[in-house]
């Protein structure tokens, strides 16, 4: 089978996989298993095609005719597409396995069938998005994906929260779509065709090219959740079922990144200002994303804000790669591109892992409020351990994959201050490094908060007390993702040559120019692996030593006691530090950007009965920007709608007035004012 055939088989198989859920109406569990198996099979086929494409000397491509005006069924699997294709297929496949236990058709019936169908459809559409080589096909696949996601978000459409989140998502997805309409229309005008092949190599002249870039930033930025266009994201991720959140956060957002990379890749020598804009926008997104995350109680909203953060990091890296192209610095191109793409893959793994873990928690406890949880590590130790892997990875801690890609971002941003060639580099890009460090330590703080509040300590409510370990079908996908985090983290060097190839295709820099930087980064990456091994050895050694000491101990096994309360002898679970108090000081330093909703019932009297303090931090862009703006529009529209219009005389007057206006305009010459 040729690679394009494999790819098409994968797309078709995944797209229709959900229909198998209807195949055996009598045995819903079997139907769901069949659908899941088909999705997994499609993912395997597609991944094989992607790996084959990475190894192939020339990107496999295929074109079939299509009836839409300007459209063609053109597929192309170059390095960029291949690197996106694998997570785009694998994460949903794992999510679908997870769904076998998390969203069983046998119990949920039609709702689960609908979800299964859409799940496969969205997966197939995403695969088409990242492999299409025609603007019309891209747009059509893009919208199928966006609409499919909308229906996934409103899976629980009887809940108000899901309704609102779904609507906000739909509106922003449509706005993104309109921006992309305009962008592709412009691109087609510049290139003379909707085919990507014709668009490749456009000159980045001032004017239309800038418009294309701005529209791409708006459209793809909305999809990717780049601040301040992220407003739809927290609500949608929180309201959707967890494996859908994993799908959306893990891979759907990445299609925005893919689009941004793809479109900027069309242009020859993009101006440095594009790269600078992406770098700055990414940095703002990263910092504010994690800041908002720190302020959340809802574990899924929190994870959603971390997506904003990580998208910011990816966009920073993409901006650096563009700067490299603007300056003709092959090393910077490689580092930035590799960092962006590797972080895309990595974020897909650890964020999917975290959402699946959060889903297991929600499934077991029935609440997403972290301040009601606690101590789950005892009831669900495996989930806790797997979640911890994801938490460490997203915090960029070695030796996991998050570190590997962030390390490349650091190197790329430092590239602008050392070992420079004759071209002037924008030194400000080096500030990316301290920004990343800030973001990384905030993320670590945030995940200390999440893991500490959810899994450690005492349970804070009956929700926590009722918890149970996740089912194997839920644990296995998480295990696979965690293993991916570890393996990529330990051996990042293995991926660098393929990334260099993809970077060469993307930037049209001669591949030889990228070999050197890739090799040197690879050599360093090997040292990272060695250091990780040393770390593991020391931990193991210390563990053995402690075991030895404890065995030898004269007093038997260590006694189990209450936590020492500094002399206070009757601690209760409610006295623990909550997630909110843990993050309070850090959240405080972002007070200027937050507009919290507070409910305060202060303690009164000598023996206060009941006191309450509850603060939630809603999204500033949504609640202070978009919603008031829309409300204002509605008010203004309301004022414009005169009640007089109900009278037939006024309706006739409108008609007469319109005619008089037309005649006046005619009398004045009838020129076009636009």
């Amino acid at each position, binding site marked *: 089978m040729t690679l394009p055939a494999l790819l098409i088989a994968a797309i078709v198989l995944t797209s229709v996989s959900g229909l198998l859920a209807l195949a055996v109406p009598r045995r819903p569990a079997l139907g769901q298993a069949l659908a899941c198996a088909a999705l997994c099979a499609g993912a395997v086929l597609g991944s094989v095609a992607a790996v084959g494409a990475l190894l192939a000397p020339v990107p496999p491509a295929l074109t079939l005719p299509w009836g839409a005006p300007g459209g063609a069924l053109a597929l192309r699997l170059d390095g960029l597409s291949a690197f996106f294709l694998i997570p785009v297929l694998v994460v949903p496949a794992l999510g679908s396995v997870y769904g076998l236990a998390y969203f069983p058709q046998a119990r949920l019936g039609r709702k689960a069938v609908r979800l299964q169908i859409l799940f496969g459809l969205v997966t197939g559409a995403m695969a088409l998005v990242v492999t299409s080589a025609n603007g019309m096909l891209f747009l059509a696949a893009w919208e199928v994906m966006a609409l499919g996601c909308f229906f996934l978000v409103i899976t629980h459409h009887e809940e108000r929260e899901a309704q609102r989140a779904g609507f906000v998502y739909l509106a922003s997805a449509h706005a993104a779509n309109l921006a992309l309409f305009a962008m592709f229309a412009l691109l087609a005008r510049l290139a003379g065709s909707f085919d990507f092949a014709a668009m490749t190599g456009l000159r980045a002249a001032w004017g239309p090219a800038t418009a294309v870039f701005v529209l791409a930033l708006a459209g793809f930025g909305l999809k990717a959740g780049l601040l301040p266009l992220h407003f739809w994201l927290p609500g949608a991720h929180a309201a959707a079922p967890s494996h859908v959140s994993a799908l959306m956060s893990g891979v759907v957002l990445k299609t925005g990144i893919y689009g941004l990379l793809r479109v900027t890749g069309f242009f020859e020598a993009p101006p440095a200002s594009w790269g600078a804009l992406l770098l700055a926008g990414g940095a703002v997104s990263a910092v504010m994303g994690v800041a908002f995350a720190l302020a959340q109680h809802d574990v899924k909203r929190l994870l959603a804000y971390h997506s904003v953060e990580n998208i910011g990091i990816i966009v920073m890296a993409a901006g650096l790669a563009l700067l490299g192209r603007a300056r003709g610095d092959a090393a910077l191109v490689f580092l930035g591109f590799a960092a962006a793409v590797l972080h895309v893959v990595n974020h897909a793994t650890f964020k999917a892992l975290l959402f699946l873990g959060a889903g297991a928690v929600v499934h077991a406890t029935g609440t997403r409020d972290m301040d009601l949880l606690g101590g789950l590590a005892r009831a669900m130790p495996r989930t806790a351990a797997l979640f911890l892997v994801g938490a460490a990875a997203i915090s960029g*801690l070695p030796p996991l994959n998050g570190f590997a890609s962030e390390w490349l971002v650091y190197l790329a941003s430092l590239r602008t201050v*050392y070992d420079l060639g004759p071209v002037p580099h924008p030194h400000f890009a080096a500030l990316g490094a301290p920004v990343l460090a800030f973001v990384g330590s905030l993320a*670590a703080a945030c995940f200390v908060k999440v893991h500490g509040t959810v899994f450690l300590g005492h349970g804070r409510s009956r929700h926590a007390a009722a918890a149970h370990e996740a089912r194997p079908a839920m644990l296995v996908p998480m295990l696979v993702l965690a293993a991916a985090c570890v393996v990529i983290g330990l051996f990042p060097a293995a991926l660098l040559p393929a990334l260099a190839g993809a970077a060469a295709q993307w930037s049209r820099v001669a591949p030889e120019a990228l070999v050197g930087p890739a090799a040197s980064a690879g050599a360093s990456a090997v040292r990272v692996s060695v250091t990780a091994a040393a770390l593991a050895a020391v931990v193991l050694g210390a563990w053995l030593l402690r075991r030895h000491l404890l065995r030898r101990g004269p007093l038997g096994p260590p006694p189990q006691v209450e936590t020492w309360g500094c002399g206070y002898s009757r601690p209760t679970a409610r006295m623990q530090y909550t997630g909110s108090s843990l993050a309070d000081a850090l959240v405080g330093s972002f007070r200027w950007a937050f507009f919290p909703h507070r409910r305060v019932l202060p303690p009164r009297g000598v023996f206060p009965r009941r006191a309450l303090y509850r603060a939630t931090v809603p999204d500033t862009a949504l609640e202070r920007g978009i919603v008031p703006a829309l409300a204002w529009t509605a008010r203004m529209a309301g004022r414009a709608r005169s009640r007089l219009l109900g009278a037939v005389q006024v309706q006739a007057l409108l008609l007469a007035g319109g005619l008089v206006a037309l005649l006046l305009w005619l009398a004045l010459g009838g020129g076009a004012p636009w």
Partner: protein
Amino acid sequence: MTRLAAAVLPFLAFLGLSPLLLGAVTRVKSLFAGRTGAPLLQPYHDLRRLLGKQPVYSRTTTWVFRAGPLVGLGAVVAAGLLMSFGGAPALLPFPGDFILFASLLGLSRFATALAALDTGSSFEGMGAAREVTFAAFAEPALFLCLVALVRATGSLSLSGMLREGLPELWRAQGPALLLAATALVVVALAENARIPVDDPTTHLELTMIHEVMVLDHSGPDLAVIHYAASLKLFLFGALVVRLALGFPFSSPWPSLGVFLGGMALFATALGAIESTMARLRLDRVPQLLVAASVLALFALVLLLR
């Protein structure tokens, strides 16, 4: 063989001598206070005593609590592999190693903070909160210092930054390096929970940072924590000393001696600072760290000029 020894011996010195550094600091503080103080080797005795004790575990804790100290130690030791002590390069230098260095310290903090939260104690939660909060402000400052050094030395590895051409650099870019070094000292104080950020000797739970996080650890676990803390102090000491001394090392052995002398000076300076300054109010700490960031940024701007 000699080259191997020249590379390994400083690392062994790092592993072996860091409790001594702690002892030296304590000793200097005692002298400032007019007391004789504990012997220099007291930290080693403490460690041995703790290793022999039977630990006590809270019923609330899980394996996270037990893994915390081990990971903390492992991370700091691994970070040592990247640090150049004395005149020799580190054991595993590579371009971009300082990023791994900082991240390993971050890993150690992550593990310790989680272990603290595992006890379910409000005090330890408080400690963890403060630790992660201050770290968030210390980290950008540290990176700004390091970026300034990258810019100044043109090298991406710690060994490269701290070895070649530093003396000339001090002559050429003295003010900038001084600013960076000052910022680095502040970061070192914060990262190691020293005065004026934290007081390692206090026993008022409500004000402590690092010490309050380890309230529930006992026996070998506590020993590992203390040891890791001393290693971390040694690492930062090495960073500051290597930057501040800035003179050429023609051969490894004398340079190791000079380095150790420098560390002694560091201990003295640290003791002096701790004796003469008061601990800052907690909410002032971020301001101090932001100020350090600004200094480092200024250094970077000077270097980029």
